[in-house]
């Protein structure tokens, strides 16, 4: 493996009075070709049956698993009714919407799906354009939901080899050369 092991998954949340939406990635430093998880969570959410939001990131660095945009979505984990969860690809991320006859509340995994690093660079991950409704209460008033702070991830262009591996490679080379001389 030529990648650095991410020491931790950085989750930054901002606790507010009502519910909060946060986004997290499973690794903040990855190589091209690596697959990471993006998790969209809600905490302390008031009862809702509808929401819409955008998950923003650099789509030139990360590609969303194609099944996410199928209907019903595949490769998506959620505490919600999957058939009522809809995703669209945006130029700057993924739009996620939900509408159901049932209501949900509390701490919830709204969605988790995989991203593949496709180019080197740095991308932040954030949530925008959030609106939550409980249509049984009001079809015009949005619920009070805040968003947590951004997270980010770096994709390396080429992974740096470890010193140990370099030494091992140099040793193997030398052994090979000596064998030819003695022989």
């Amino acid at each position: 493996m030529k990648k650095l092991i991410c020491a931790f998954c950085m989750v930054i949340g901002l606790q507010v009075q009502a519910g909060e939406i946060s986004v997290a990635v499973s690794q903040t430093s990855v190589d091209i070709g690596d697959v990471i998880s993006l998790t969209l969570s809600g905490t302390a959410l008031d009862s809702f049956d509808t929401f819409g939001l955008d998950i923003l990131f650099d789509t030139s660095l990360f590609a969303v698993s194609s099944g996410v945009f199928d209907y019903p979505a595949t490769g998506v984990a959620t505490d919600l009714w999957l058939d009522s969860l809809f995703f669209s690809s945006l130029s700057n991320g993924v739009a996620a919407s939900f509408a159901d006859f049932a209501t949900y509340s509390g701490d919830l995994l709204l969605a988790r799906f995989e991203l593949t690093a496709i180019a080197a660079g740095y991308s932040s991950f954030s949530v925008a354009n959030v609106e939550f409704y409980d249509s049984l209460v009001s079809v015009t008033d949005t619920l009070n939901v805040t968003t947590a702070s951004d997270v980010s991830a770096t994709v390396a262009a080429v992974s740096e080899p470890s010193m140990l591996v370099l030494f091992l490679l140099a040793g193997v080379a030398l052994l090979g050369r000596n064998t030819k001389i003695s022989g």
Partner: protein
Amino acid sequence: MKIKLTLLALCCGVSAAQASDLILTGVIDGPLSGGTPKAVEIFVKNDISDLSVCGIGSANNGNPSSGEEYTFPNVAAVAGSYLYVASESPQFSAFMGFSPDFTHGTALSINGDDVIELFCNDQVIDVFGELEVDGTGTGWEYLDGWAYRKSDTVANGATFTLANWTFSGKNKLDNETSNANAATPFPIATFTTSDNGTGEPTDGEGEPTDGNGETDELLLGACNETATAISAIQGAGDTSPVVGETHVIEALVTSSLPAIDGFFVQELAANEDTDPLTSEGLFVVNSQVDYPAVGNIVRVLGTVSESFGKTQLLASDALFDCGTGSVTARQISLPFASAQLPESLEGMLVSFNDELVVTDNYALGQYGEVTLASKRLFIPTNVHTPGSSEALALATENALNRVILDDGQNGSNPDPVIYPTNGLSAVNTLRVGDKVAGVTGVMDYSFSSYRVIPTQYPQFIHSNLRQATPDITQGNLRIASANVLNLFNGNDVGNRFPAERGARTELEYERQIAKTVNALLTMDADIIGLMEIENDGFAENSTIFDLVSRLNAQAGEGTYAFVDAGGEIGTDAIAVGLLYQPAQVTPVGEVQINLDAIHNRPPLAQRFALTENAEQITVVVNHFKSKGCGSASGADLDIGDGQSCYNGKRVAQAQSLISWLNTNAALAEQDNVLVIGDLNAYAKEEPIVEFTNNGFVNLVAAHQGAEAYSYTYAGESGYLDHALASTILAAKVVDTIEWHINADEPRALDYSMQYTNDIQDFSFYAEDVFRVSDHDPVIISLQLEPAALFGDFDDDGDIDMLDIRAMMTAIQTGQSLDIRYDLNGDSRVSVIDARLLMNQCTRTRCAL
């Protein structure tokens, strides 16, 4: 000019009536209320000092003589005058334009099939009709028409001689309001006789004369001697200036016609005059057994007379072989340049330059004749506003654009009917619109019309071919309007036939309904509006029940059903009705009946739902008041604008119907409304304008144009049968046609056996779709589809999660959505609107 009876006080110097003093010369069964006027005309041959020795009586319905039921009063009558005896005075006066001399209800209680006897000195001196024979169906029937004695025939005592009479034809006075304006008027006071009882010509005073007022006898003379020019006999006017005079003519025979008791002659070109208004031809009534050959020059001595407007010479002596020669037929064309032109050609050999078109074949079976024109003629109010200058101009043009192609036969119901080529039959029809070429013959005037009696058989071209199935663009719903020509299945008890209308016998009914069933099955409509079906309810013995049973017997049980309106509808003998195919449509709600008293035949309205997609349509079937003037009075009278009688009533019926459709609780909310039926109004007449001014679309006009037709009357075509759609429905109409299986066909090919002999009963009849009725059916093809379902993004007819997803995708990706999707009214379309659309899903939880 009619000479009215001069009643003189009884005095001396005139004689009492003798057997030969009075002649029964005419009988009329009129079209006004109660079949009036019912009257007879009697010619007074000699002065009568005391008419009270004479009287009159009628024998009704095949019964024996009733004897003298009315005796004339003790008054005198003058030779040469005419007496008129009627059943009453007001209607007689209104129709004839003068008062009758005598009235008697019983003696003149006649109905077109009854016998009249004229008595003097207790003896029958003249009779019309056969005693103990019901005149219905006989050669002397005069129902709603008249019979008139031929000039120079004499009373035969108690013996009736059919050949001495001419007839208007049955129903020829129908719808007429006055004799003066009638198409076939009673020929008032036109009987003439040169016989004063002694067999000698008279001068009107009973003295023998040579016709020139001189007492010297005019002799025939020899060939090539001096003769009177035919142009001098014809004169420049409608009648001869020398009527009653005796003349000798010498001319060439152009047509020899024993069948009509005479021959036509024409001056050789060298002997013609230069006046274009005087004809060079003349009809000679031949009293001899022999007839001259065509091309012979003949010399004839005879008396000039007018017979129903035809100038003729009553030959008393003749030389049939004064040489031979030829004349050239006068080349003419239609329309005539003027009304006077055909009169100037009366009796002459003519030839039409162009192909002509059959415009009227109504009398083809009965009289062997058809009317020709340069093209199909249209009812003026079918194409122009009634009373407009355009309508009046077209009426004038039409009047000049017709001539009858005669068969050269006298009498009625000829066998064979010689037109078209090989003779008329059910499989060899002659349709209105077919063409006729090579029409050459002599121009005759008789029965109030100019006619050509061919000297060579014309060429018939079947250019208006029959259409065995309707040619109509297919939709998903087909509706028809069909007038079924008084379809009556007879009375329920006792002798079923004749019924009040329609078939006269069981066999005729079977023939009628077989054709009707065939036509209805062939048009294959999902909903059928019927007119002129017997108003006898919906029970098993009703006509509509019988009709549907017979349809299902052929199409399969349950294929057709009728809308049960509960019982008899209104009080008229006929009613409207509705049939439908239950596999295709289902009635929704109760049938609605418009019982406004303005409707003599209450309209029916029924909502139907299509089996295919549950779309609904309301069909309203109607039969408005007819144009007949039988009982018209006041505002209902014909005002001469082309719309005939009862136009005001039809307008009121249209207004009542429109109001009903707008206010009736079961009808008012319907968008898809179709008014069909025989509205007895042509396309541009006021009742139709009522509809088009109130949001209805004339589908026949929209799809067939200005020259559509469903009916022919007096040689002119138009459409009385309509399809009028609400504006919303009109956009869903794929096609509308008038299926021409009836209007163009000769009446002789219908089910009736009234005017046919045993052979024609079968040769004229086929169990096909042609001449089922006198009206063509109207067929409307529609494509009824549900309105686009709001929210059905994928257009698959429902709203499910795929549609919610589509809406969500549009919202997520910033696509423009119709503001109608702003379901929460916050002026934007967002995810909550998609959630609200889920409430409109077709299935639970928006399942797919």
